[in-house]
């Protein structure tokens, strides 16, 4: 027999002003099953909680209804109290008579009546509640970081310093990401490679970090604390262990193709490392351009390799790793010039992206830092920078601001003027957004001391007229059109989500927005978490960010991982779905609607091991307790604990008696 206690809170005058609390307590006594009821001024106070605990013991209560504030406020408090008194916490429910009653109604009679109803509903529910146990999940104390840019490197280093082993998976043949291609960085103008390469070396040498380069995530199974990732190690045609990185192969390779790292401005070989400081400093063969692999000719690299590390029959390999947590730091890509037909659509070599410009001025770039324009190698005497190209243009490209362009354009004007002291540089801008430490000062310096001329207006078109590039823009401050003849145009094109990110997100089961950026669990309070427990985000995978922000987030995600993996087991609420295998017919409805892929088919076999039938089976580790499965089940064979049909129906039924 149910023995229910009802505890009605005054919440000072918050409830008592509009609800006759004593009457609610009094009437509650008449609800079948209620053996005790009481009202008290502050039920959440220590004496209030004592009242609940004592009553549970004294009256041997099997269920408790606390009529007070929203369960969002104190459900945890009271359930803990119940537990302390020896009652299963899930046998306690709250009737929300403050937020959803006393605070929103004026009339005492109505408030009281409604409170009685709410109590009755909860009494009926709690009578049918079942004790639930929290679920304890073991944890694999290992983490995976996807993306080996500066963000991923930072995350891997921080996790490893906490004593947790890390697998760092990088899509390219070297870690380093976009930052390794930059020249100098704002607002301090320190050399990008000078600050990044030590970090790359550190992560490579860390005993707890395993770098898997030129690899991608093939599949992810499991759930928080217990992921199993399948990693595709793409065919590299070079035995990384045998290779010493001596460089003979790429020196001898006869094939020259455009270098991706040099943004198409320089050349690389068909067997190559993307840049001299690459880590691991092991080459890979580009199968599309290698003569041996495409035409079965040449084979020089194999001949010259002193350690016999070249294998033309190399295949993609798969490896499985078990990890407890994952950091996704997949970064970004920038839009190519060809995306903008009104700016020439890529037909003019002297219209370049800002990343190309970085390579053009970088001392390790294809011209070794001699600034030459791509078409004819001429020193550009006049350069125009155009901001917001593809950003802030919801009609054609992206609605968002790419955030870092304002700063790097200011930096690039300086880099330019440092190379060409007599040169003119113009910046077409709409707004200058320089909110960061020393950022505004940096932009002012570009304009006041370094000779950048800022023009407020967007550019309508860019075309070639004879030898000149012509930029047709506006100066909205003087209300006029401006045509600038120049030698080189640098477009600050938008940062975009990288290719394949949606597929990756789907494999990982995490959300992404309409732009392809990954979605955080809460934009303010859970900025590096995803809605999927155990998977964290950092850096430009979320949206455009600069280096300081990305590095901070790498550390933040690492802290989350360390927190999660500091325990041996994880506890989670017992509110999960359970299948009645006797009545389940295996129609797969629940499997299809489950947002978490937490349900799968299970074979039921007879003693001879012959398959009899198939039923649904819930993995409680993956189930988050949304209950979408329940209404999809025609035979009611899957039920969400804590919100079972009989419990909810009891609430509806409780209202019938009114």
């Amino acid at each position, binding site marked *: 027999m149910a023995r229910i206690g009802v505890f009605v809170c005054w919440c000072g005058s918050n409830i008592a002003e509009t609800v006759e609390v004593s009457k609610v307590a009094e009437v509650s006594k008449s609800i079948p099953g209620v053996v005790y009821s009481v009202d008290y001024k502050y039920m959440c106070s220590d004496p209030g909680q004592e009242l609940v605990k004592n009553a549970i013991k004294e009256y041997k209560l099997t269920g408790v209804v606390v009529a007070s504030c929203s369960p969002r406020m104190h459900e945890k408090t009271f359930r803990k109290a119940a537990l302390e008194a020896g009652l299963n916490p899930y046998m306690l429910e709250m009737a929300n008579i403050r937020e959803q009653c006393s605070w929103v109604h004026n009339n005492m009679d109505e408030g009281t009546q409604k409170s009685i109803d709410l109590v009755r509903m909860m009494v009926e529910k709690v009578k049918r509640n079942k004790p639930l146990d929290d679920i304890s999940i073991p944890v694999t104390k290992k983490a995976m970081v996807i993306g080996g840019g500066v963000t991923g490197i930072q995350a891997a280093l921080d996790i490893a310093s906490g004593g947790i082993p890390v697998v760092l998976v990088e899509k390219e043949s070297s870690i380093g990401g976009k930052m390794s291609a930059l020249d100098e960085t704002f607002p301090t103008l320190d050399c990008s490679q000078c600050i990044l390469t030590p970090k790359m070396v550190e992560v490579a040498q860390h005993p707890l970090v395993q770098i898997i380069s030129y690899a991608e995530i093939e599949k992810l199974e499991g759930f928080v604390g217990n992921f199993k990732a399948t990693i595709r190690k793409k065919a590299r045609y070079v035995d990384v262990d045998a290779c010493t990185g001596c460089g003979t192969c790429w020196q001898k390779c006869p094939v020259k193709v455009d270098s991706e790292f040099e943004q198409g401005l320089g050349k690389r070989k068909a067997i190559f490392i993307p840049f001299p400081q690459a880590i691991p400093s092991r080459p890979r063969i580009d199968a599309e351009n290698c003569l041996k692999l495409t035409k079965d000719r040449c084979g020089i690299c194999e001949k010259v390799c002193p350690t016999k590390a070249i294998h033309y029959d190399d295949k993609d390999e798969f490896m499985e790793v078990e990890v407890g947590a994952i950091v996704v730091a997949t970064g970004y890509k920038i839009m190519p010039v060809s995306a903008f037909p009104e700016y020439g659509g890529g037909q003019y070599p002297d219209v370049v992206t800002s990343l190309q410009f970085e390579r053009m001025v970088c001392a390790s770039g294809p011209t070794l830092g001699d600034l030459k324009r791509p078409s004819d190698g001429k020193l550009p005497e006049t350069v125009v920078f155009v901001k917001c190209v593809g950003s802030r243009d919801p*009609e054609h490209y992206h609605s968002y601001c790419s955030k870092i362009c304002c700063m790097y354009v200011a930096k690039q004007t300086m880099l330019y003027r440092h190379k060409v002291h007599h040169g003119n540089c113009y910046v077409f801008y709409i707004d200058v957004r320089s909110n960061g430490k020393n950022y505004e000062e940096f932009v002012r310096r570009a304009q006041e001391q370094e000779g950048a001329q800022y023009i407020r207006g*967007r*550019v*309508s078109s860019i075309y070639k007229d004879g030898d000149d590039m012509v930029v047709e823009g*506006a*100066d*909205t401050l003087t209300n006029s*059109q401006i045509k600038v003849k120049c030698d080189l145009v640098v477009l600050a094109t938008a940062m975009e989500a990288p290719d394949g990110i949606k597929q990756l997100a789907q494999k990982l089961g995490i959300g992404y927005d309409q732009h392809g950026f990954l979605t955080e669990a809460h934009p303010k309070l859970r900025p590096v978490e995803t809605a999927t427990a155990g998977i964290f985000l950092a850096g430009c995978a979320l949206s455009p960010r600069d280096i300081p922000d990305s590095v901070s987030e790498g550390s933040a995600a690492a802290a989350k991982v360390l927190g999660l993996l500091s325990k041996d087991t994880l506890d989670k609420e017992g509110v999960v779905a359970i299948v009645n295998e006797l009545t389940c017919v295996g129609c797969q409805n629940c499997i299809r609607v489950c947002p978490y892929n937490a349900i799968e088919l299970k074979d039921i076999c007879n003693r001879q091991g012959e398959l009899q039938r198939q039923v649904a089976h819930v993995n409680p580790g993956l189930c988050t307790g949304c209950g979408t499965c329940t209404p999809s089940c025609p035979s009611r064979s899957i039920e969400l604990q804590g919100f079972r049909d009989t419990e909810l129906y009891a609430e509806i039924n409780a209202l019938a008696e009114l």
Partner: protein
Amino acid sequence: MLIKIGREVNLLAFSKKLEKETGTDVRKCYQCGKCTAGCPMNFEMDVSPSQVIRFCQLGMEEKVLNSRTIWYCIFCDTCSTRCPQGVDIKGVMDGLRRMAVARNIKPKSNVRFLEKAFQSIIYLFGRVYEPGMVGMYNLRSGNFLHDVGYFPLMLRKRKISLKPHFKRTREVRQVMKRAQKMKLRKAKELEEAK
């Protein structure tokens, strides 16, 4: 210039009115100036296209209706096509021009005479008849000899004929009359509503 915004001024009222007339919401404009940058007629304008939109945002109806700009827009649509915010600048110009016509504001360009001439020609013939139209335009604009030099040349190349062609003129006239009546009726209703 001083823009006074008193308590009685509702900045949004004009934007809303424009939206009703043209279907475009000028409040979306964030003044990047791309329209101005690409406008082939900007050098003839007293107020640049982006500024027209700005004045509309500020509710300065008189300023825009009395500008040269709205009469010099040639509807090439470069602005609207490139606008990052999807503001139909050309449509706004067109709408402003209709508002100015409705209020009998003196046009700042001869183009209005061309429009009038054109309307009469359609009324008469149902299809365009260039010599008549240019002639009528010249009469209205007071520029009697405009383009007359091209006449013999065009005649020689048989690019214009002296004989107008008529088509469905009765129907066209009926449609025009009905549209005119409708306009008057609506104006009256609006008046009464006030």
